[in-house]
């Protein structure tokens, strides 16, 4: 499975991240959730924590909002996000 996820991290003021990544780990409302390519379409609310995009250093501190996965497109939409 060489497909990659198209990830975007969006806050009201700006789009903080847009690009491809092999995986996303997000702080869902009840614990962390990992997303890999070919995930089923999903919408989940997020809690407070660190969002990790790929294995690199792209990390965000987020609080609230939601995550949407559909057709390998991951959108993290949150009112409060700061890049770490």
């Amino acid at each position, binding site marked *: 499975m060489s497909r990659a996820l198209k990830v975007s991290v*969006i806050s009201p003021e700006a789009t903080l991240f847009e690009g491809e990544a092999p995986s996303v780990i997000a702080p869902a409302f009840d614990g962390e959730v990992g997303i890999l390519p070919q995930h089923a379409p999903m919408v989940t609310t997020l809690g407070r924590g660190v969002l990790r995009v790929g294995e690199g250093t792209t990390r965000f501190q987020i609080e609230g909002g939601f995550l*949407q996965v559909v057709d390998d497109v991951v959108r993290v939409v949150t009112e409060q996000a700061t890049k770490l």
Partner: protein
Amino acid sequence: MAKGRELKGRIKSVENTRKITRTMEMVATSKMKRAQDRVVAARPYARALGEVIASLYSPELAERFPLLRQPEREGRAAVILLTSNRGLAGAFNANLIKEVRTLLAKLDAVGTQVELHVVGKKGVGYFGYIGRALAATRTDLTDRPSAADAASLVDGLIERFTAGALDAVYVVGSRFNSVLSTPPTADRILPVTPPSATGAQKDYLLYPSAETILTELLPSYVRNAVYRALVETAAAEQAARRTAMKSATDNAGEMLNLLRRTYNRARQAQITQEIAEIVGGASALQG
């Protein structure tokens, strides 16, 4: 040469005014560019939020959410008017006030009790002048409104709408279609008009449930509507100021041309007259 000196004074004064208006035009242009960028940057969030709400929305769910409740009659409504803190922006604030007066008249006609929340010194000043009581005033918002500003404006109203103390909330601000088109508009943000779904509905896995997600997203959606109104109005203000200052600069230029022409003509006439006097005097002596 008394008239000449007077003209010279006026030329100087118009030149100085033109310097100021030209500077303000340039400042407004650069502020407008940045404000415009913020309007564009706010769009993906609004789109993402709208799409997800549209995909989760169903009429059966709507009945259970206070924010989607459609009251049969608007007994009590709140109107948020967005104006600027500073003037010299042409008809910008006047247009917004006219728009809100139209809305107020319409609500009054159906017997709605309206409370008015005003943002910006210009709006506050106007309603103070005509002596209308305001429910709340805000003059601390800057050229760069943040999402937190929007939240602090509307959170109280969301709560009261949920509790049933309000039946509708309107926002009056300028829409920023383009630099040249910034019409004042009145939008109803509560109750929420669900965005219509586009494209095929996906069968989503929902965690924890559609209801919980909507409960969290609907207030965000309302807050974002206010945030969008704030940024668009801020950009529209700068656009209006730029246009106003540009025409002021142009008018000053025209006036300067006219004044300079009059001044030079007066100067020329005086020289001619002096020569005539000298020639006349000389010929009288030779006489």
